[in-house]
């Protein structure tokens, strides 16, 4: 059976070479958020016109955890249906074996990319995927409301909590009862891991798993950060925040019903869009910190394009990856979707700075972004993340205190680690 397949493919391949027909049908898969799909399609149209290849988009659900499950299934089955995968920044160590090494194929351009982004996709010297865009979250706030109540932009979580409470109470008293103080990603999924590691790290509570693989998450600073976060739910945050993902949070903020929001960069372009009720009323700043002696932490996010080892059109697929990450396309993405680019030069582009002032401002944040422990925990990362978000979610939904849940998390992580990660 396999032999027959090989012969058929071989014959077909030779026939194609002979006839000079190089047009190929490629398939790219991504999980679209905001205007990703629209921009990708437009860029693919250009690619199709330039190369004669056709590209089909397969669109996945918003939740990165859902995407991962499906991709793993396809890859384990060695499916050749998908040529290019758009992968979350944390997946490279877990999926490296399924992707071709891009190093020799992009050697001429790799020096132009943000080093941290390239490093996040390099596993044992293999470049698993080429960074498409980066992510480093921001604190979105309603500048008009802060001004109205004479409050300054908060720099610590406690300040943010107090300001949110004050404005929320004021607005409620004025009859605006749908107003909340703070929305974020609180559903039990990867997004909560990102949010919670920011609270903890910026409060001096360290990382979920330290860089050397040690587990020190069960500490008073982390507990204090989680306790404060738990007080938000049902207070400055709607109770439903425990099931919010990115788009739920944006929905509340963009319809004008929250003073603060923690979200990724993509939300900026949408909240500032033509049809947004808050378009002239909001601004962004870096996420708060725990106070003196601590500094703000922004989780390193971002998406990368990898070429499947099982693809039957690897050459064309690499061409596509190079095309989508080129200067022009990154520039368009930065302007239209406010996604931080992975090419250093785009941050200095005058046009980008003019149309999306957010981007050049965010360069230092992206440079200092906090990675999740995917490199330290290797194949166990998903389970580590799940254990972490469960501990946080339980704390926030009132099932046990922060101390109890962190103690349990520590045990769980220790068990997962075993002798070593």
């Amino acid at each position: 059976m396999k032999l027959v397949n090989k012969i058929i493919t071989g014959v077909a391949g030779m026939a194609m070479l002979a006839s000079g027909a190089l047009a190929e049908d490629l398939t790219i898969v991504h999980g679209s958020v905001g205007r990703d799909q629209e921009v990708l399609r437009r860029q693919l149209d250009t690619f199709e016109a330039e190369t004669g290849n056709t590209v089909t988009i397969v669109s996945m659900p918003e939740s990165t955890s859902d995407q991962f499950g499906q991709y793993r299934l396809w890859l384990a089955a060695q499916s050749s249906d998908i040529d290019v995968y758009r992968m979350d920044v944390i997946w490279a160590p877990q999926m490296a074996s399924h992707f071709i090494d891009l190093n020799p194929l992009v050697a001429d351009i790799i020096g132009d990319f943000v080093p941290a982004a390239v490093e996040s996709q390099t596993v044992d010297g293999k470049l698993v995927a080429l960074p498409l865009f980066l992510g480093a979250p921001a604190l979105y706030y309603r500048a008009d409301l802060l001004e109205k109540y004479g409050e300054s932009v908060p720099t610590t979580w406690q300040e943010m909590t107090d300001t949110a409470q004050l404005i929320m109470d004021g607005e409620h008293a004025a009859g605006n009862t749908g107003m909340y103080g703070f929305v974020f990603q609180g559903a039990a999924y990867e997004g909560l891991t990102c949010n919670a590691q920011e609270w903890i790290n910026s409060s001096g509570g360290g990382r979920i798993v330290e860089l050397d693989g040690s587990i020190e998450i069960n500490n008073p600073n982390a507990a204090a950060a989680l306790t404060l976060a738990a007080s938000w739910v049902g207070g400055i945050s709607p109770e439903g925040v425990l099931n919010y993902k990115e788009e739920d949070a944006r929905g509340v903020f963009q319809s004008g019903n929250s003073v603060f929001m923690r979200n990724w960069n993509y939300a900026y372009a949408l909240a500032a869009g033509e049809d947004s009720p808050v378009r002239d009323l909001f601004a962004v700043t870096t996420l708060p910190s725990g106070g003196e002696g601590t500094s703000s932490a922004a989780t390193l996010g971002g998406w990368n394009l990898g070429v499947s080892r099982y693809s039957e059109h690897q050459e064309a697929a690499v061409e596509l990856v190079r095309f989508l990450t080129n200067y022009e396309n990154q520039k368009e993405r930065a302007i239209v979707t406010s996604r931080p680019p992975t090419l250093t030069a785009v941050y200095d582009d005058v046009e980008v700075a003019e149309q999306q002032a957010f981007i050049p401002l965010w360069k230092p944040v992206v440079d200092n972004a906090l990675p999740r422990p995917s490199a330290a925990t290797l194949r166990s990362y998903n389970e580590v993340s799940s254990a972490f978000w469960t501990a946080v979610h339980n704390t926030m939904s009132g099932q046990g205190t922060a101390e109890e849940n962190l103690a349990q998390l520590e045990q769980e992580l220790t068990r997962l680690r075993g002798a070593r990660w």
Partner: protein
Amino acid sequence: MKANNISRLTRIRTRSAWAFLAPMLVVLLVVAGWPLGRTIYFSFTDASLDLISDARWVGVRNYLEYVDFGDGEGRYYGLLADARWWRSVGNTIWFSLVSVSIETVLGLIVALVLNQQFRGRGLVRAAVLIPWAIPTIVSAKMWAWMLHDQFGILNDMLMRVGLISDPVAWTASPDTAMIAVMIVDIWKTTPFMALLILAGLQMVPGDLYEAAKLDGVSATRVFRKITLPLIMPAMLVAVVFRSLDALRIFDIVYVLTPNTDATRTMSVFARENLFDFDKFAYGSAASTLMFLVIALITIVFILASRMDLEGKNS
């Protein structure tokens, strides 16, 4: 001589019966037996999804293993010692118990109404089936929006009527998450129960009711003494079908509240381990145990209800 003939005839009939059954048995063996066997096999190995062909036999380690820490202390690991797993089992059973009970009662009521003569009955019978006809993933997503705490229509309606003063975070709060899942399931599968019970109702001979009417028996008594006993066999079959389905509940939970302890069911637990956690063997063990749990519950139910599976009484 005669007896011999009959037994020969019986033999021939038995043989042709097997011949007719054979294709179905082969298909069942291939599409159900083989995957089940593979799953059970994998549960005794250290298989991971990426390295499935390298699976090595590890015995019952996925189910239960005592790890000695070497300092006189030790701990049990494995599925049977996994609190998360047992919580999932508890969630599943609780979900099935509540939703199937409510579905049976509601289904019975709907069936009784649909069994009456009234104008437009055909239309209503068809309309009732709509929730059942919508793919679960679609209806779950639809309900996810209706249950949304900020944009959801359910909170809007309840607040307008004045039943609640603040929006309820149906799918977010651990107190209501399971209720939300049950609401969707009940909405979806009540028509199925109604349909099966209606089929049973239509088997009840009309002259029984006429006789009761002549004797002046009250309506509740007719229901308790005539209708209920006669539709009981059909209802029990419906309950078994539903329970089998409910114990495997996956899609509604996966769409509404995928990763929370309060609603994680056995299927969700198994999927999580199989695909997300790269613990294919552990997930296979969970699937195997799930199979056993469901089989056990079904057998106990059939025995307890003295269900007539062989058709001896009819």
